């Protein structure tokens, strides 16, 4: 889709190897004596999509913010592309973050900027990229075309609907073509049709650019869609995928602890009452 440069190929960018894009080792995060994450360990392999399920306050967003360096862990180690980033300075994090795209829960678009300026923001400000202004517009247009919102380029976020804002935020997250993407509740607060559109974009991004992704959600159907469908570039639609072809792993969080990690079949087979609440089994869906 977007012929914009790959983050790893941009001037000054460090090459992205086949190393695991993200690894947590015994991460604990404490806020005011409350443990948001506790002894949390997992490794995300290249090309994998992790669906992170959990109730509100279970630590899903904190997990993404630790991965992005926006929250410092109280203990444990974080590795991004095999680089230990646990104790690096904020200025060093800017380089690491150029390899990561993030969609925030409420989109977090800058209200005072147009859609074009929002999408161009990482191209202009990330030190390892800093694209020339004349090269920027095609990249911004391509990214907006990817989310089918090129016509909104000169509008302000306040003029867009919630779903459109979410799509513009996806365009901003992927404009630098980062190899690792973090989606924080991409479908929260959206109607089912718009939610489906957003998830289809996430699948399209995964299949077109072969990105690794963490998708935080409380909706099992989002994970089901990611695990079982692929983007068909010819038809531009989602087609059913072969079993296991999408490299999707499910994780379930409860009160800051990882209580499940496995594939969809294992998740659906779980008899844990907490996990079962997130899983909509085929017979339940039919009912």
């Amino acid at each position, binding site marked *: 889709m977007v012929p914009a440069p790959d983050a790893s190929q941009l001037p000054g960018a460090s090459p992205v190897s086949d190393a695991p894009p993200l690894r947590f080792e015994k991460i604990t995060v404490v806020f005011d004596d409350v443990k948001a994450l506790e002894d949390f360990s997992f490794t995300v392999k290249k090309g994998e999509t992790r669906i992170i399920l959990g109730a509100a306050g279970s630590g899903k967003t904190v997990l993404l913010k630790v991965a*992005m360096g926006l929250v410092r862990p109280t203990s444990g180690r974080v590795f991004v592309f095999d680089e230990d980033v646990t104790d690096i300075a904020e200025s060093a994090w800017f380089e690491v973050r150029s390899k*990561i795209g993030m969609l925030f829960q*409420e989109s977090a678009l800058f209200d005072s900027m147009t859609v074009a300026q929002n999408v161009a*923001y990482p191209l202009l400000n990330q030190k390892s990229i800093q694209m020339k202004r004349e090269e920027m517009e095609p990249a911004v247009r391509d990214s907006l075309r990817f989310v089918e919102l090129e016509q909104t380029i000169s509008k302000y976020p306040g003029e867009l609907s919630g779903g459109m804002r979410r799509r513009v935020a996806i365009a901003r997250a992927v404009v630098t073509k980062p190899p690792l993407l973090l989606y924080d509740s991409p479908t929260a607060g959206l109607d089912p049709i718009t939610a489906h559109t957003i998830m289809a974009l996430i699948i399209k991004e995964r299949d077109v650019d072969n990105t690794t992704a963490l998708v935080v959600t409380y909706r099992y159907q989002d994970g089901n869609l990611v695990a079982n469908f692929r983007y068909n570039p010819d038809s531009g639609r989602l087609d059913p995928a072969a079993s296991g072809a999408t490299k999707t792993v499910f994780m379930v969080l409860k009160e800051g602890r990882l209580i499940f990690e496995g594939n969809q079949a294992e998740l659906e087979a779980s008899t844990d009452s907490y996990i079962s609440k997130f899983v909509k089994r085929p017979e339940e869906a039919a009912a």
Partner: protein
Amino acid sequence: MYASIDFVSTSTVLDFLKGPIQAIQDFFELAGRAMRNVIRRPHYYDDIRLQMDALGVGSIPIVLLTGFFSGAVMALQMGRALGQYGQTGRVGNVVSIILVRELGPVLTSVMVAGRNASGIASELGSMKVTEQIDAMRALGTDPVQKLVTPRMIATAVMLPCLTVIDDFVGMVGGWVIARLVYALPSLQYWSTTWRALGWSDLGQGLLKPFIFSFAISLIGCFYGLRTSGGTQGVGRATTQAVVAASVTIFVLDLFISKIFVSAGSS
């Protein structure tokens, strides 16, 4: 028994002080980072210009209004008081000294604090609760460099300018009263006004708003950036910023005045 009471009261006092001390430490850390960024790249010149327009030019109407009426009221009261000693002709003298040394800097700063510390706190607070500050960090920008430093520079440049405008408009207000109420000749009013001022008065009158500007911008940014608790938190941060900035202005004013008085230049 007394020992345990002492222990409880000491720990309670320490717990009570922990929050404010932490806040003061955080404030000075933010101030240090903002000032360090003045000489560090990148510099956001467009943001500085934008803030100079919003914080400075946008404040001119309130400065004109408050300056004119404060000068007029002062001339009215002083004219009456001086009239008891047959010194009504010295109204311009008193008005200019009080305006330039005290009332101009403090009144302008308090008005600007009311308008801009609240504006800064609510804008940054809204950005904080909608994760725009986090997004800024995620997209390669230091929020202190992008948001705090331009506001600090813009306020430091514009507040002394606004104070000069306030002083002049206040003198004009005093002149209107001197002419209409006390029938003083214009030449007498303006010559006494001009002669009353020394270089130290002008220095004091410009140094104060320059120092107050840091209190206004940094306190506004500090409360904005530590906002939590949604829209209610934004409202709380805005109120706290205005109160803290206004009180700080009066406290700093006392210290700066004391230094000038002690130096014998007052």
